[in-house]
């Protein structure tokens, strides 16, 4: 039925099968719309956030998906600026994933703030000393860049490219793509960093506060590093998942191992800096704020194990897997490594967001936990469903993996 939209020579399931695949996701999307509607109409009392847990599940997951979406800018950087041509095999997919991650995060943020209609205030009256201002500016700019990068992928659709002006525009847009890759890299660099800076500057929160260079706390640089280390791993993971769902090879093995290798090297650098930073923080920064670092880990369930799991289990371990040539020859090992790396970035964002708020600052305040309400979870499921649907449509009708056709035989 929709054969005319699918690229020649590419095998896709039947329209019926595709609709059947979409149905549960659309249902999930509808469920999310309900939750979002409740939050927008009735207010944020629909969530379980409170005055102490002013940030909750949403901010944690936003930071996580933005870190995972770093694959888009970093792959673009490696391909267009450093000329790693092998990555052309995944760049389109990485751009779509980046677009989904960033637009999804912004969507959730719009539900998360108390007065979404005032979102433009940050642009009109920016406080240029706030990390959040930097994040807002960079993320919106970068989403624009991602949309521009998405455009040529869409214009390559079999029907759209029949229109001569689309075809010519796509061709010319593709030629200037390195400029957008560079701008995207610049913007991503700053907002990934600012997201870390968001917490690092909180000198009222000794658990999060870090010293740093110039105006940036060390978390600024650690967030950048962890994002670009995990980005390729997430691209690897999604490519593998898509090839499992579509039941076909999408890229050559060497692309997997290249992504794993890049991720591995960056992870090892990250783990190194993160360890140094943790030691400095525990032995110098925190005591200067009047806190004995043991206090941070005095409460279950966020004991000291979380710190070790984050650095060793989800940082060092995947790095070692990725850096071993023998493991890199095995797809299951690379997938395991990617899962660990992605879990690592999620844990880091979780610790910075949730644990920072859980650990009390005043002595007579208790350690606190919070459980998200179904509305919060459903809002996030909306983003997941939105991402799956947009990706599925893109995968079916656009060329996300140029090597797919070659690998069919």
């Amino acid at each position, binding site marked *: 039925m929709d054969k005319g939209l699918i690229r020649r020579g590419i095998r896709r399931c039947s329209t019926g099968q595709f609709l059947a695949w979409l149905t549960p996701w659309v249902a999930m999307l509808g469920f999310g719309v309900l939750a979002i509607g409740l939050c927008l109409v009735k207010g944020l009392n629909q969530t379980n956030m409170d005055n102490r847990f002013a940030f909750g599940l949403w901010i944690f997951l936003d930071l996580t998906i933005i870190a995972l979406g770093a694959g888009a800018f970093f792959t673009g950087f490696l391909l267009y600026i450093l000329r790693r041509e092998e990555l052309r095999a995944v760049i389109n997919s990485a751009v779509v994933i980046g677009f989904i991650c960033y637009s999804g995060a912004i969507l959730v943020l719009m539900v998360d703030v108390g007065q979404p209609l005032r979102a433009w205030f940050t642009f009109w009256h920016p406080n240029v000393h706030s990390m959040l201002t930097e994040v807002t500016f960079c993320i919106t700019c970068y989403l624009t860049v991602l949309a521009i990068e998405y455009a040529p992928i869409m214009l390559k659709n079999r029907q759209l490219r029949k229109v001569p002006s689309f*075809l010519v525009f796509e061709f010319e847009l593709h030629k200037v793509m390195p400029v957008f890759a560079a701008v995207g890299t610049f913007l991503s660099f700053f907002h990934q960093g600012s997201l870390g800076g968001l917490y690092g500057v909180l000198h009222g929160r000794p658990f999060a506060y870090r010293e740093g260079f110039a105006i940036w706390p060390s978390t600024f640089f650690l967030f950048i590093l962890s994002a670009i280390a995990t980005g390729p791993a997430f691209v690897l993971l999604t490519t593998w998942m898509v090839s499992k769902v579509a039941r076909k090879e999408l890229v050559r093995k060497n692309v997997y191992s290249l992504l794993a290798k890049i991720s591995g090297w960056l992870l090892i650098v990250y783990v190194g800096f993160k360890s140094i930073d943790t030691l400095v923080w525990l032995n110098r920064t925190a005591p200067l704020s009047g806190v004995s670092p043991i206090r941070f880990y005095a409460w279950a369930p966020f004991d000291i194990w979380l710190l070790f799991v984050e650095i060793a289990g989800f940082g060092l371990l995947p790095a070692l897997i990725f850096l071993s040539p023998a493991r890199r020859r095995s797809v299951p090992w690379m997938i395991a490594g990617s899962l660990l790396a992605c879990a690592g970035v999620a844990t880091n964002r979780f610790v910075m967001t949730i644990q920072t708020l859980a650990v009390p600052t005043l002595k007579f305040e208790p350690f606190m936990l919070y459980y998200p309400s179904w509305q919060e979870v459903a809002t996030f499921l909306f983003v997941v469903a939105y991402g799956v649907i947009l990706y599925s449509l893109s995968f079916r009708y656009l060329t996300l993996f140029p090597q797919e056709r070659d690998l069919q035989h």
Partner: protein
Amino acid sequence: MFPGIYGFAWDAGHIIFLGIFYVVLMVVFATIAVAMRRAIRDSRTSRAEALRWHADFEDLPERWRRCRHELAGEIENRTCPNAFDCRHCVEHPLFVSARNGRPLPEGEPRVAGFEVPGDRLYHRGHTWVRPDPEGLLTVGLDDLGAHLLGSPDMIELPKVGSRVVANGTGWLAEKSGSTVRVLSPVDGEVVAVGAGDEGWYLKIRPDPAGSDMRHLLSPAEARPWMLREIERLQMAIATDAVGAALADGGVPVEDLSEAIPPERRDDVYGAVFLNV
């Protein structure tokens, strides 16, 4: 955000932060503007056809982009980097001069049942061009192409007096619901159009400077190429259920398209006529 708005101050923070922001915006919009301007220029100067071919070529699978010298057995493995346009190829003259004037083996004029006459030059999109005595060029579908399209359901030929460009659209043919863009082998002005049953489709007046036809295959090159094409066609037709189904030797059936499973037809046309 802007000077004069409450909260704005001419201090280092504002100047640096907003300065960078505006620079980024300007770079983004300027780059888009450049791309748009070039796109408009391209559309005006009818470069669209050439660009379409380049874009299509980029999207062809690598195993379809083999260099003609690989097909002729002169080199082991070479992917064409020039969109099958040997006129701009740096290496093509080197290959030719490496032959030291020795012609390639002529081969049989009949390849696996398909005619490859020696009086014409062949384009990789299964068209040929034959110089006429009066200085015009006749363009038609080669035997494989003609067998595949059989008698097309619909055909859209260019207007007499219009220009065609090499690798650009020669004419459009519709067969069993799929549209095929048949590529023109040469540049020039269309002076007459005919139908497929006359054995030719277009008569073209070459540009005054004469037509450069270095990118076209000589009959000697076309014969091994045709063999490869039949292989490729078989690959394209092959589904998981049905293996290769073309006759080996003998005369192929008049309308090959009937032999192709309907759901594969569109892909096969794309593969043979180099349409993405």
